[in-house]
């Protein structure tokens, strides 16, 4: 393994192809958003609120800049 400082400082974790989504949610292709039990998953008043935008994010810097 390289000794480059950016590699030695890196945090390692298991790779996830997709974020770990809340159980029972699905993507509504008609509306173009995620729902759970017919309710919008991400909103200020939903069970999961808007922090899910961070919670489910696969860490790629901040904004899913990966491919």
């Amino acid at each position: 393994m390289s000794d480059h400082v950016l590699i030695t400082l890196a945090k390692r974790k298991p790779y996830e192809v997709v974020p770990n989504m809340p159980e029972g949610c699905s993507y509504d292709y008609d509306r173009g958003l995620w729902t759970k039990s017919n309710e919008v998953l991400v909103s200020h008043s939903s069970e999961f609120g808007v922090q899910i935008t961070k919670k489910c994010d696969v860490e790629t810097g901040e904004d899913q800049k990966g491919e």
Partner: protein
Amino acid sequence: MNKLCLILCSKYDFSVDLVIQELEKTGIDYIRLNKEDLSNYLINIDPIKKVLTVKGHGKNRTVSNITSVWFRQPVFIRNAPAYPLSLEEQLVRSQWAAFLRGIIVFEDAIWMNWPSSTYSAESKPYQLMLASKVGFMVPKTMIGNDSSYFEKFDEEIIVKSLDTVLLREGEDCLFTYTSNITAKELNEENTKIAPLTVQEYVYPKTDIRVTVVGEKLHAVKITSAGRGIDNDWRLLKKEEIEYIDIGLPKLISRYCKDIVSEMGLKFGAIDLIESNGNYYFIEINPTGEWGWLSTEKRPIEKDIANVLAG
């Protein structure tokens, strides 16, 4: 002409869900295309007539009235696959990426953001140069792989990547946060194979996130137990972090809007540091995340929807 917003993003780009709800409320027509699903649709562009057709998942749209494009796609591809790509995978990646860039045929639409603006705005050296030019204080910075330059810094330094470090090894992924180390820890052996960014360590510090959307600006300080966070705040547990609205000095607000404007952006997520009353520019992210900052009193999604609605 009816307005139509085209959204190019990821299926897991949850902040988009917030904006879509705003578009629904205001009756703005939209099409969301997720990069994960592109091959599951039938999608064509007539580049001469500027017509887009999208078929699949219950959609059958032929549109020539795209009035805004929300381009949430990165311009640079960062993460390397940990396995050899098949011919089909190589083809899918290269050609869909080019297809999405080709959406610029709808040049008359409102773009958030125009891809070539995102391209230049994603360059950290360019950001720092421009930030200094518009008037910001910028930490002393050296970028490269010659460690002899790094020895000239004070003992404590900030080490960060020049671009997102997102690596794969076997079943693991590696991500490098901004780190605080000492200049003595850097040498030819641990820097030569790839360039990095070294900055003076500004201390004490309070991180500030400024989200600029069109003419709107939201400034939030990021603290833990009411105090600034010494290291990369993303390393803390989410429940330990507070996001508190602040007012910026008028001059700093102007610099924020100026750099977004200079870069030709309509959206920019800017990281600043406040230290002893001074405000330092750290970086700007043209496709930065913001959903986690949104509240009913700080409804960033409404600002974005308003820009997209024209």
